[in-house]
């Protein structure tokens, strides 16, 4: 059995949740937020995870080895709002062992 990783997610209300994320289900961070219902339905993952809506934008709060932004993510973030240097699209970050200890905060809804 593969191990879960622990990720801390601060929701849009400012409440931090420590959640267990499976590494063997091809899940991404946006889906993790949905699965734990940390953002109301209809406010996150609107495009289904195609890097086309930025509703899953989050800020990475600590130093964890994440995959680089891909071209789609870079393009979407260049048109999104409330973007900071540590902005990422949750749907483009897949849950792997490398994410152990990751801390993120959801960006405001826009």
């Amino acid at each position, binding site marked *: 059995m593969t191990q879960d990783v622990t990720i801390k997610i601060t929701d849009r209300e400012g409440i931090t949740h420590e959640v267990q994320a499976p590494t063997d289900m091809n899940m991404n961070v946006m889906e993790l937020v949905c699965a734990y219902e940390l953002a*109301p*339905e209809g406010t996150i993952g609107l*495009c289904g995870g195609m890097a086309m*809506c930025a509703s899953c934008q989050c800020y990475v709060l600590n130093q964890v080895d994440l995959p680089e932004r891909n071209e789609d993510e870079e*393009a979407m973030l260049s*048109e999104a*709002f*409330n973007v900071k240097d540590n902005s990422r699209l949750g749907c483009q970050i897949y849950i792997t062992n490398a994410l152990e200890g990751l801390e993120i905060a959801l960006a405001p809804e826009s």
Partner: protein
Amino acid sequence: MIKTDILIIGAGPTGLFAVFEAGLLKLKCHILDSLPQPGGQLSELYPKKPIYDIPGFPEVLAGDLVNNLMEQIKQFEPGFTLGERAETIEKQEDGSFIVTSNKGKKFQASVVAIAGGLGSFEPRKPLIEDIEFYENKGVKYFIKNPEKFRNKRVVIAGGGDSALDWSVFLSNVASEVTLIHRRNEFRGALDSVEKVQELKNAGKIKMITPGEVVGLNGAEHLESIDVDINGAHRNIPTDYFIPLFGLTPKLGPIANWGLEIERNAIKVNNALDYQTNIPGIFAIGDVNTYPGKLKLILCGFHEATLMCQAAYQIINPGKKYLMKYTTVSGIDGFDGTRKEAPKAVVKAID
């Protein structure tokens, strides 16, 4: 006033397929959608992307699925009103409904099926102070009549196809076109990017990249914008600012129709027929919710089918009907066409 049996709100795959199932029951449909083309998210967001979980299609492009659905329903001659949003609904004494669009068009139907997906697509508005004040005073999120910009100065912001295409188009209409994007790379069709490059080289489009519009100025009407260029602010005089940052779905006016809403979706009775708390109004596809709901196209098809059976009973109370198999009974189109399985050839053996 447009009169029909079932008014379908939303021209996505679920709404389109509902026309087919209604047609088998001899019910006429009219479809209303806020987007200018049918297909909903499939056409608007990802027409060139593949879908792998449509039964019977190992792989189908979203745009092709929409085309196939349009082909499948054409003999049932659905009416289309595109580019208009359903705004209000009123129940009539005879039990029918009158829905009015944002442009004032009225539709009367015995049954209303909301197949609105995540809602109607509305422009994403940039977070600039006072932008709402300047809406219709120089700030435009849509271009409906390009002539409005003739001999005017126009600033367009965005990095996708619509920003590129409108920059190209308006370069022949406006006195000055400036395109502003937060980075140098654009994600539009290659030929659009190349065309903008040509026009930039020819001095017909001014480009500011990387740049971001951060302020709007003007007393009664927009007079200039402030652009952040690598931390420095520059003021650019302009008559119009057109931010084109794509569309985002919002449930919109439907949320005020008295329907029971849960988690941004319309609650329905999934044990029976996907009817809402208002008899005669159904919700099918991504727009509804019930225990165990999955937002999948294939689930929307199923929901549309059951909805139509219930709509038949409302429209034809007491009239007997038994579900038929198309292979057995064929399809009689409203346009006079008939599709049927070829008859087996019986040949005697001597």
